[in-house]
C-alpha cells in the first residue's frame, strides 16, 4: 500500500487589527495559555506557519496582520497571492469593535476576493472576545451578528461561532473548522462507532494529539451537556500544558465516580482517545486492554488512508 500523500490546506486568518487572530492561533497550535497571549505584538504583513495535523494533513496557516495599510495591500497588489487556493477563510470580528461599518466593508472585500479566486472555500466567521460582553447579553448579541453576517455573505455561505480565549468556545469553533479539512473523517467515524459498540462504551471521543481538538466522536447514550466536547478539550489541554511546565508529559488519565468511568489515553501517533463507560460491572483493566488492542487498527487507518478526497468529493 502506498505511503499517504501529504495534503496541504491553505487556511486564511483575517480580521481587523487587534481582533485576536494571532492569540487564537497561538493557543490552538502553539501551546500558549490565554494569559501568555498578552505578550504578543502586532503581526506585520503575513505570518506563515505550517501545522502538521493527523499525520497526513498540513495546515498552511496565513495569519494576516490587520492594520489598515496591510489590509489595503491584500486587496490590491497582493490580491492574487493571498486569495488563491484557499480552502478555509476564517474571519475574526472583535465583538467590541466601534467601527462596525468598516469591519463589514473589509469583510465584504475579502468575500469578493474569495469569490473571484477561491469560490469553493469554506467560510467561518468568529465573533470573538465574547467574554467582554455581559453574560446575559451574549446570546442576543451573537444571534444579531450571525444574522447580519449570513445576510451580508450571500451568495456565499458562512458558519458563525462565538468565541473567547478564556473558555471552551474557542475549541468548539476550531474543532468545527478543522473537522472540515480532515480527509477521511467518515471512515474514522465508522470505525469509532464499531469500537464503541464492541466495548460497550457510552461515548468515545477522538482528539488530535497536539491541539486537543475533537476530530471525531460517537455516542450511544443521550448526554446532558452539548458543550462537553469543547470543555473537555479545554480542560485536558490546560492540564497537558501544566504538566509540561513541570517537564512531565501527559500520558493518560482515569476519572471515576459511582456513575461513570472515563479513560483518556494516547491512542495513535496523532490522536488521543477518551472512552466513557457507565456500566459498573466492566473493570478498568478490561477497557484498557480494549483500547490497547484497538490502537493497532486505528494506527493502520491513519497510515493507509491518504487524502483520497478532493475538494469536489467532500
Amino acid at each position: 500500500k502506498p505511503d499517504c500523500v501529504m495534503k496541504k490546506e491553505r487556511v486564511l486568518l483575517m480580521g481587523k487589527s487587534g481582533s485576536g487572530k494571532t492569540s487564537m492561533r497561538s493557543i490552538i497550535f502553539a501551546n500558549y495559555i490565554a494569559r501568555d497571549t498578552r505578550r504578543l505584538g502586532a503581526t506585520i504583513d503575513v505570518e506563515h506557519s505550517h501545522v502538521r495535523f493527523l499525520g497526513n494533513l498540513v495546515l498552511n496557516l496565513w495569519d494576516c496582520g490587520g492594520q489598515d495599510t496591510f489590509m489595503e495591500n491584500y486587496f490590491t497588489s497582493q490580491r492574487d497571492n493571498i486569495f488563491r487556493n484557499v480552502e478555509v477563510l476564517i474571519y475574526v470580528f472583535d465583538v467590541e469593535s466601534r467601527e462596525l461599518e468598516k469591519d463589514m466593508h473589509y469583510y465584504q472585500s475579502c468575500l469578493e476576493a474569495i469569490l473571484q479566486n477561491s469560490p469553493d472555500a469554506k467560510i467561518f466567521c468568529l465573533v470573538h472576545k465574547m467574554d467582554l460582553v455581559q453574560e446575559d447579553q451574549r446570546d442576543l448579541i451573537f444571534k444579531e451578528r450571525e444574522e447580519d453576517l449570513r445576510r451580508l455573505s450571500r451568495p456565499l455561505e458562512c458558519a458563525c461561532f462565538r468565541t473567547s480565549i478564556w473558555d471552551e468556545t474557542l475549541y468548539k469553533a476550531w474543532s468545527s473548522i478543522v473537522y472540515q479539512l480532515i480527509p477521511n473523517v467518515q471512515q474514522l467515524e465508522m470505525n469509532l462507532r464499531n469500537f464503541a459498540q464492541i466495548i460497550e462504551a457510552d461515548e468515545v471521543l477522538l482528539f488530535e494529539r497536539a491541539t486537543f481538538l475533537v476530530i471525531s466522536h460517537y455516542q450511544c447514550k443521550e448526554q446532558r451537556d452539548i458543550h462537553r466536547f469543547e470543555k473537555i478539550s479545554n480542560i485536558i489541554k490546560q492540564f497537558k500544558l501544566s504538566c509540561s511546565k513541570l517537564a512531565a508529559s501527559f500520558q493518560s488519565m482515569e476519572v471515576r465516580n459511582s456513575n461513570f468511568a472515563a479513560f483518556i489515553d494516547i491512542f495513535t501517533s496523532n490522536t488521543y482517545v477518551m472512552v466513557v463507560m457507565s456500566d459498573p460491572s466492566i473493570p478498568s483493566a478490561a477497557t484498557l486492554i480494549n483500547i490497547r488492542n484497538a490502537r493497532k487498527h486505528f494506527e493502520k487507518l491513519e497510515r493507509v488512508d491518504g487524502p483520497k478526497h478532493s475538494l469536489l468529493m467532500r
Partner: protein
Amino acid sequence: VGGVCRVGWGTGPPLLQVPEDFISRELFDTVQVYVITKPELQNKLITVTAMEKKLIGCPVCIEHKKYSRNALLFNLGFVCDARAKACALEPIVKKLAGYLTTLELESGFISNKESKQKLVPIMTILLEELNAKGKCTLPIDESNTIHLKVIEQRPDPPIVQEYDVPVFTQNKDDFFNSQWDLTTQQILPYIDGFRHVQKISAEADVELNLVRIAVQNLLYYGVVTLVSILQYSNVYCTTPKVQDVVDDKCLQEECLSYVTKPGHKRASLRDVFQLYCGLSPGTTVRDLISRYTLQLQRVDERRLIQFGLMKGLIRRLQKYPVKVAQDERSLPARLYTGCHSYDEICCKTGMSYKELDERLENDPNIIVCWK
C-alpha cells in the same frame, strides 16, 4: 533629497510625509514591507529603490508593555530620486533613528499625542535645511537639539610613503588654524612642497608614521597633494594633459601666476609651454636650465615642476634598479627588485643619490630601468 516620511502604529495616520503626497499610495504599498518590517530587518539601514524613487530608512522597534500591541514601530526615512547617490544620507538616517529612539524612551516623544504634532514641522525643517545647506540644526525641545550634516564620501587616499612630498593645493594660510589635530598643526609649517615626509618628520620632530598618517589625512580632504622629491638630476616627461595649459583658460591663469618668479613681470604662455615640452626622457632638470635660460628668466623652475606634477601635466621618470644575477656581496639585495625607486632606496638606507648611483654603476649584476 525629496520628501521625508514617518510611519507608525496606533491611532493617527500611519504615514506622515513632507512634502505631502510625495510618495504615491502605489509606491508605498509596494515598499511598505521594507519600511515597517518584520523583526529580522528591524534596526537595520534599509534602502529600497522602486518606481523612480529611492527610500532610505531605519525601522525601529521599541518593545514595552505600555504600548498597545506591546511595541512601538516607526521609521524616519528620506526619499530621493532613484539615480541619486544616497550613501551620504545613510549616517544621518541612522543618527536620527538613534535620536528618536532616545527621545521616545526618555519622554515618549513619538507616542505622545502632543509631541507627535511636532514631527511634521521637524521633518519640514530637516528637508529644507539639508537640501539647501547640507546641514541642519533641529531644536526638539528646551533641552534637546539635533545637529546633522551631510558628509561627502570621498575615496580612500593612497598610502603616503616617506619619500613623498606633500604640497598645498590652495593657499597655505587658509589652513593655519587650530581646528586641526596637534600632530597636523606641528607639521604644517614644514609642508612647503619640497620637503619630503621623512625630512618633515626629522625637522618637525614628529615620529615618521604619525607624519605619514597626518599627511594621508590631509590628502583625504584634498588639502594637499603628493609630488616627488625635487632634485636637479630628476627626469620628467609630459603627459597628454599638458595640452590643457593651452586649451583651458582657467588652468592657464593658475599656472602662470604660480610659476612666475616673485617680483617679475608675468611669464608668457609661450615660454612656459616650451619649458614643459622641453622635459623628456634623458633630459634632467639641470639640462633644461642650461638649454632654456631665456625662458627661465621670469619662471621659477621649481614651482614650474611642482605645478606640473600637481596638475598631472608632467610625470616623473624614476630609476628602478633590478638585480639580474645572484651575488652574495652586494646588498641590500631585497630592494633591487625593480619595484623600488631610487627615491625610496635613498630614503630607506640614508644614502644620497650620488652614493647610490656610484654603487650601482659599478655593479655588473644590476640593471637600472627608467619608468
